[in-house]
């Protein structure tokens, strides 16, 4: 049997607003490229088969399970990870995204492992809706319904979703 040859390819991807160039084996998962090549370890890997949602990142603004995407597939695209969710306040600090504020306020995390996936999914879900409207329970269920959490029983994650929607509504007024 011969030694397998790893085909590599250079990619350019904008991660959290910063253009990054890296060379990756073509079989490398986006989750591994983010975590190990770019050392952005905030994206977590819970199942590596696309079910738990812990590894969710935004690719061109859309939530994507980074364990189901190859790094080469995001060549030329913009990726946002949990590290890029808060904004720079221009004074060396950061302004948390409303979903981050809401998670902290509502005790929506315990071990924190699934949290980045929920935050990214929820941020995209809330930003995609009309933030001036009150959020409905159906919307909350839709936004939080696809990710697994083993600690919280989801009650406080749903609460955080409502709270974040409220913060975004206030901010828009």
């Amino acid at each position, binding site marked *: *049997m*011969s*030694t*397998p040859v*790893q085909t590599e390819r250079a990619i350019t991807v904008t991660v959290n607003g910063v253009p990054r160039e890296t060379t990756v*084996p073509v*079989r*490398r998962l986006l989750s*591994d490229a983010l*975590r*190990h090549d770019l*050392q*952005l*370890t*905030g*994206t*977590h*890997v*819970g*199942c*590596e*088969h696309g*079910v*738990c949602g*812990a590894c969710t990142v935004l690719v061109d603004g859309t939530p994507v399970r980074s364990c189901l995407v190859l790094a080469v597939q995001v060549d030329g695209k913009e990726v946002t*990870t*949990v*590290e890029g*969710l*808060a904004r720079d306040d221009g004074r060396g600090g*950061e302004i*948390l995204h409303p979903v*981050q504020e809401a*998670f*902290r*306020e509502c*005790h929506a*995390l*315990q*071990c*924190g*492992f*699934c*949290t*980045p996936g929920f935050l990214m999914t929820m941020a995209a879900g809330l930003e995609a809706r009309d933030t001036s409207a009150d959020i409905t329970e159906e919307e909350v*269920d839709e936004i939080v*319904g*696809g*990710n*697994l*959490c*083993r*600690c*919280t*029983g*989801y*009650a*406080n*994650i*749903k609460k955080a979703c409502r709270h974040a929607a409220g913060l975004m509504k206030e901010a828009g007024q």
Partner: protein
Amino acid sequence: MTTKLFGEPVRRREDLRLITGRGRYTDDIGHGALAAAFVRSPYAHARILDIDVDAALDVEGVVAVYTYEDLYGPMAEPLPVLIPHPQLTAPRTGYPLARDVVQHVGEAVVMVVATDRYVAEDVCDRIAVSYEELPVVVGVDAAREAVHSVHSDVPDNVAARHHQETGDVEAALAASAHTLSFTQYIERSACMPMEGKGVHAVWNHDDSSLRVHTSTQASTSVRAAIAAKLQLSLEKVEVVAPDVGGGFGVKIVHPWPEELLVPMAAMALGQPVHWAEDRREHFISSAHEREQRQEITVGYDDEGRVTALDVRGWHDNGAYTPYGIIVPIVTATQLVGPYAIPVYRVRIDSVYTNTVIVTPYRGAGRPQGCYAMERTMDRIAQDLGLDRAEVRRRNLIQPDQFPYDHHLTFQDGRPVIYDSGNYEGLLDKLVALVGWDRAEERRAEAAARGKQLGIGMAMYVEGTGPGPYEGGHVQVLGSGKVLVSTGLTSQGQGHETAFAQIVASELGVPIEDIEVVTGDTRRFGYAVGTFASRAAVMSGNAIALAARGVRAKALRIAADVLEADVDDLEIDEGVVQVKGTPGASIPLRTVAVLSNPLRYAFDEAARQATQFAGPGDDSKPPVAVGDAPGLEHVDYYSPIRSTFASGAHAAVVEIDPTTWEIDVVDYAVVHDCGNIVNPMIVEGQVHGGVAQGVGGALYERMAYDADGQLQNASFMDFLMPYASEVPDVVIDHQETPSPLNPLGLKGAGEAGVIPGTACIASAIEDAVGRRIAAMPISPTELYDLVRNPDAERVPAATTGVPA
């Protein structure tokens, strides 16, 4: 005035790093390390004939390949039996890498180390292991029949026969006005933390020391195991549990083979080695729990009061018994719950099967015990035509009966003596909270919508906070920072916050000045671990005692400086002051500087402190006999026995008679964990526990086939609840402080999961009028049950469902 933070819903101090991606879990540490991967057995029971690694050695990037033949000294011996017990007469454990025979699918056979994980898995694919298949034992019934044996030298497959009794149960049953007997099953689930296990080991060749990060619930014990197995002096091994992505029990087992093998490779190769468990590995090589068969006979009087209880159980312990028989002991001793049972006998055989090991999963045998006892209460009620709540009420231990001695021996070897409780109070609150008395109304209303509604309840008592001890260290620095450490670990319970609240309240300092570290042997060497709902009780009290020691020393030094009596001093917002005398004060940080007679003025705090330093007394040494420099204190809390928390849950289910979907529409919890440090955190623990309880009752099961293959070893097939499966939970608290510890705490971590299976089974039975004797139950199984003409029916009078 410093806000008294004990008891307040303080927002968590862990959260900022975790919501910004700055948490550090084991797999986030050590970029560039070599990666380990494992070849695991594809057979449930087989003899290893040959391991051919030739093809693997050609792969570019392979660094090392290890089999059992490469293990030396203590590593070549079986893994330890952590918790021996006289009744565990045939303990068996595996080897770090399988020797000769594999006993379950997933057992590690070969460890590969390569330049990265992808390459390591390529190498694994090229290693050819030949096996001779052996007969497989799956399930407690097959284990009992013992047609085949898991371990050839344990022909009956019985690892242990656990037996406790409080009197002559057969005489008491014979004398009982009524008796009934039934058999029921509960299946396997597993902890399934979102983060699997992981180990990162760095060997420092220059000083011959080893640093290991591992996703564990017991870093001090992993350290001791590594030192023993790798023949290192204890002080040359450091073990750190960094951020840990959930545990729920599976990470209390130690050492996992990988916690020894990865450090072994790091030492041998002189390079950092890393391993992150993938989800399939977690399913087939980490621990499961819950499977039992229970045969119950109960005697009772005309009023429904239990006169005798006899439980015969079989507990599936999987292939090995590294964690002893803790789970069956907990089932046996916690089964009696909040009830006064005059005569009780329990006999549980712990049996081997060719499946993954069974060790505690949140609840640790209690859900099974609760299932046995609570379903017994339901049956008595149904037999006598009594309300299920009323039968429970008649059997409860009364508030004036504490301390209540069950005359049983608990998991810690100590007597099961309930320290305090108010079980009738729980029941009253539960009945009100769930609207128990409105059940018939709701049943009719649901029927009008075409749904079958049922209601069930279950009560439990949970022994929490077992010893032997935990410790705490509190130190005030000259900067005013207060460093707190304890050896036990955290997996999301909010210890950094709860322990900081305790120190803030005990010491009178702002919580912002407090930094808490857990699970790092560099900071605290003596610890037991995080399990059995013990962290708040054990480390919380140890840290409180340590803080009290610091406070006493601070007051003594300050009294000297301020020329005041110790009793006239108080500490508020980090300042020691004479009560009622403004201006007569000294900051605690300055006291900290004064506490050390060596005061090089490295910083402003030290310079300021000199103004307080009086002339030395030449007749005494600078550090008095019996004193020590520094404002710090270490203390330990070691309880005489466990403290017993309690609670009561109720579930309302609606069943759709066309799809047989089971919808938990209401879930009510009344919970008593004594004094509460942080109610927000306690409620979070209850919510999470209930979700796992619902999962265990309705969705989660390890589907082994007859060949011992786990058919659902993925999140696609093993159904854990998403948000859509978890009901809204309403919670009411009762606080019955423990008289056993200084803070009056009882544990809260596991409570939420314990009664789930029992109360949901009760509710489903109430809805459909058929006996539910095996849990979990799926819509398909429920459909089959109601269509089966032979299915046992529940007396109609007790459910309102036509028989």
